[in-house]
Each structure stands twice: as structure tokens, then as C-alpha cells.
């Protein structure tokens, strides 16, 4: 008998019908993994900027490749901001569940939509503040 191959892996993604509870749950996991990666990059970024002995190396380089990297970097920062807000809001929702509140189906659905809405709203606010500080 091969116990390792026969065991099922627990949260199945393909076989269930999507609804707001499963969506928020799986997004909590995905954003968690994304945030871990972002945290590693942030940490090594701080390390890099601390020990960077020759700053202002390629700020004046206006080539195509630098622009592509810059756009990708902005996209990564904005999406990790969304991940942070989403994981933060949904994490508070999970903590409320842990003390036994908000389990009713209606409340759970409402807070699910609320969490997604809040995360999007906070991301838009953050991006607007960044754009304002950068260009005005």
C-alpha cells in the first residue's frame, strides 16, 4: 500500500462552485503567500539600500529596459499593497470568527464583500497619495 499517493490533498480548488466565502478564503491564502514573498523582497531591499556604497548609479539611464523594470516594479508594489490591505482586513474578520462572532451566513457574506471593497478602496487611496506626493 502506498499511503502517500492515495491520500487526498485537502482544500480542493477545481471541484467546488465559487461563492464569496470560498473566494475570500482562497484569496486569504494567496495574498498570504504573496505577502511572504513581498516581505522577503522588502527585507533584502532595506539590506541593499543600507549597504549600497554607490547610490544614484543608474537614475539618469533612460533606456527602454529600465522603464520596463520600473513599470513592473510599480505593478508589484501596488499589488502587494492590495494584498496587504486585503489580508489585513480579512485577518481581522478571521479574528472575529475566532471569538465566535459573525458566523451567520448573511453576516459572513456581507463582511466578505465589505473586506474586498475596503481593500480596493484603501489601495486606490494609497495609490492616489503616492501619485500626489510624486507629481504635485
Amino acid at each position: 500500500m502506498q499511503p502517500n499517493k492515495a491520500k487526498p490533498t485537502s482544500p480542493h480548488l477545481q471541484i467546488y462552485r465559487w461563492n464569496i466565502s470560498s473566494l475570500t478564503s482562497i484569496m486569504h491564502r494567496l495574498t498570504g503567500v504573496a505577502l511572504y514573498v513581498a516581505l522577503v523582497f522588502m527585507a533584502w531591499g532595506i539590506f541593499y539600500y543600507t549597504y549600497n556604497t554607490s547610490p544614484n548609479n543608474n537614475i539618469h539611464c533612460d533606456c527602454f529596459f529600465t522603464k520596463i523594470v520600473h513599470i513592473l516594479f510599480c505593478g508589484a508594489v501596488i499589488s502587494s499593497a492590495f494584498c496587504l490591505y486585503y489580508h489585513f482586513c480579512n485577518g481581522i474578520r478571521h479574528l472575529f470568527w475566532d471569538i465566535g462572532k459573525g458566523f451567520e451566513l448573511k453576516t459572513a457574506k456581507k463582511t466578505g464583500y465589505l473586506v474586498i471593497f475596503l481593500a480596493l478602496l484603501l489601495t486606490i487611496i494609497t495609490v492616489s497619495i503616492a501619485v500626489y506626493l510624486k507629481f504635485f
Partner: protein
Amino acid sequence: MQKTKIAPSTKHGFRHWLLQKISAVALIPLVIWLILSFVNIGLDPQGYLPIFFSYPLNAFMGILFFCFGFYHGSLGLQVIIEDYITNKAKVHFYVMLVNFISITTSVAVCIAILKLHITN
């Protein structure tokens, strides 16, 4: 007739859950503190990071944020790895890999923040 084999309890689920929750609660103020300074650091890291971490509270909260963040992250990733990977040897390997990355990275970032704090 083949019996269904159920994965045995590993007897440390409650402790894991509790530590996950405690680190989550600790991260709430740290994340709020981080968001307030998120934008300024992101726009000019080379210029703003030394100023930011020269304040004692910022350095303190920064180190706490990264330590709790990596702890919470490794606990969470451990659950995900245990859920989706069935091979026990692979589970141990990936959990150890995640723990290794967490520990080395948090030590590195603590050294960096302390250097920024002390030299500025």
C-alpha cells in the same frame, strides 16, 4: 476490502493555531504603523530610509514588524505546505526551507535596521 487511512494527528495543532493568532494580533498595530510610512519610503528608499530608521520608535517597530511578520509567514506557509503536498519528506524539506529563509532574512534585516539607526 481496503480501509480508508486517516492522517494521524500530530498533537501540536492547537499550539500552532494559537501562535498564529497571537502573531496576527501583534501584527495589527505594526501594520498600521507601517502603512502610515509606506508611501514615503517607497517613493525614495535611498534618501528616506536612513531618516526613517534614525528615530528610535521606528527602528524598534521595524525590527518587531519583520520578526513577527516572518514568524507569522512561516507558520502560515507551513499550513499551506502541509495541505497541498502529500509526500512527507517533501513537506519537511519545504518547511525547513521556509524556516531557513525566514531566519536568515530577518537576521539580515535586523542588522540593516540597527546599522541605519546607529549610524544616522
